[in-house]
């Protein structure tokens, strides 16, 4: 069934492709398209970071009965733009004792890792830059590059607090990476494919979260916890615990170099929410019910990217909620949670999911007329 989708951005990209290919040889058209993709990606990256920083400050303020930023623009809405300009015109201080090469290379790793993951997210119908057939695996692989940046930053700073922060961050990241990977693997068993666009397509009438009921809900909770821990936020922010470690691994960074770490941290929070949306909550797919054509048509009038960002925003909000509701863990509690609870639960959970799929006890298996594609 094809529904009319007047506001989809894929119409614009298709039109642009046609015009460019008509006006010039293939090579130049392709080159211009690549440059456009880069520019759009860069803009989206920066704008999302600004929105996230503003949202975080405002929501945090409401959690703590404050007003938050309210001076720059109406409701302080251009506060994060002002902050960005400020951080751009701050001096980048040259520190004598650091390992020069590694110190300057570290922000590259942070930004490139989050940008590569960012490019693989399906933002809407046809709005995905890199669509490998090993999508989930690719996302896990490139997002773990970021930890190299953190370790380099901590080690090259030649600063005890940075070193402790980086080591904690390394231990935390590699531990929770396992859980995140295994939770996503559980959903790969359910979908039968690793390609992100196909995973979204397979959730047309039933989100994976409901399709795999018990097992999928466990995987979802584990993924949210470990994703939260991977981004060094909330109760898991001990790598940069400000009361013990000044600022953790980015203590010695100043100006825009610090800004890059900040940017990557906020984008990683969004990326975790976006991957969870794609794999568990149906990605950009509008809510649809089989047979209800009018209802489905109305849902399709809302463009797919709005669906995607709405779902991701809910998850980002949950992440902020968790952050301001729990006290910081100790390092041994943090590692115990992962190695003694989440990892064994996850290993068992994979088997439960395989049994559910093989015995046809998933929702699509039980009610193929209602939920099947």
């Amino acid at each position: 069934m094809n529904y009319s989708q007047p506001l989809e951005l894929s119409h614009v990209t298709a039109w642009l492709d046609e015009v460019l290919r008509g006006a010039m040889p293939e090579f130049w058209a392709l080159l211009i398209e690549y440059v456009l993709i880069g520019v759009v990606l860069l803009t989206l990256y920066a704008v999302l970071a600004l929105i996230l920083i503003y949202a975080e400050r405002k929501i945090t303020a409401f959690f703590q009965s404050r007003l938050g930023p309210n001076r720059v623009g109406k409701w302080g809405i251009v506060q994060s733009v002002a902050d960005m300009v400020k951080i751009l015109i701050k001096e980048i201080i040259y520190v004598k004792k650091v390992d020069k090469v590694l110190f300057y290379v570290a922000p590259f790793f942070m930004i490139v890792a989050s940008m590569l993951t960012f490019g693989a997210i399906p933002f809407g119908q046809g709005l995905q830059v890199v669509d490998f057939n090993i999508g989930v695996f690719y996302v896990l692989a490139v997002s773990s590059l970021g930890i190299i940046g953190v370790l380099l930053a901590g080690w090259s700073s030649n600063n005890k607090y940075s070193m402790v922060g980086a080591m904690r961050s390394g231990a935390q990241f590699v531990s929770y990476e396992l859980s995140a990977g295994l939770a996503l693997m559980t959903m790969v068993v359910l979908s039968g494919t690793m390609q992100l666009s196909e995973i979204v397509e397979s959730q047309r009438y039933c989100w994976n979260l409901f399709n795999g009921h018990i097992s999928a809900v466990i995987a979802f909770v584990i993924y949210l916890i470990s994703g939260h821990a991977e981004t060094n936020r909330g109760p898991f922010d001990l790598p940069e615990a400000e009361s013990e470690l000044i600022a953790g691994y980015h203590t010695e960074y100043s100006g825009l170099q610090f800004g890059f770490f900040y940017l990557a941290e906020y984008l990683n929070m969004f990326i975790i929410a976006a991957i969870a949306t794609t794999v568990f909550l149906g990605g950009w797919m509008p809510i649809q019910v089989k047979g209800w054509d009018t209802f489905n048509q109305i849902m399709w009038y809302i463009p797919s990217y709005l669906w995607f960002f709405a779902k991701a925003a809910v998850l980002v909000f949950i992440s902020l909620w968790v952050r301001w509701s729990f006290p910081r863990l100790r390092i041994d509690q943090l590692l115990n949670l992962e190695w003694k609870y989440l990892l064994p639960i996850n290993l068992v959970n994979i088997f439960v999911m395989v049994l559910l799929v093989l015995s046809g006890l998933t929702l699509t298996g039980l009610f193929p007329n209602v939920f099947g594609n």
Partner: protein
Amino acid sequence: MDSSSLFLVVLLTGITLVVAGLGMAILISPRSFNLQKTESYECGLPTKGSSWMQFKVGYYLYAILYLMFDVEAIFLFPWSTVVRDLGLAGLFSIAFFIGVLALGLAYAWKKGVLKWM
């Protein structure tokens, strides 16, 4: 447009962001030289000695454990896409594989590797 050239485009976009940002910051930010400013900040007091020294071994033990399970994940991902077709035979053969690894985790647990000291 194949995926690998798009991957390169995204990679270059990331690098461009850092290079362009730093370039702009260096052009417009003020600069002044002061000997005090080149000292490490650390916690505000003058630093003592280098921090490139031996470090707590506990972190490395976790890294080794991680390596074990991460390699396992590489084997499990291809399996997870085809497990529907393999059926119960696939489940049992991978159960043996994971069982051996879980035994490894249990051994580490018993030996007290997972206990933070």
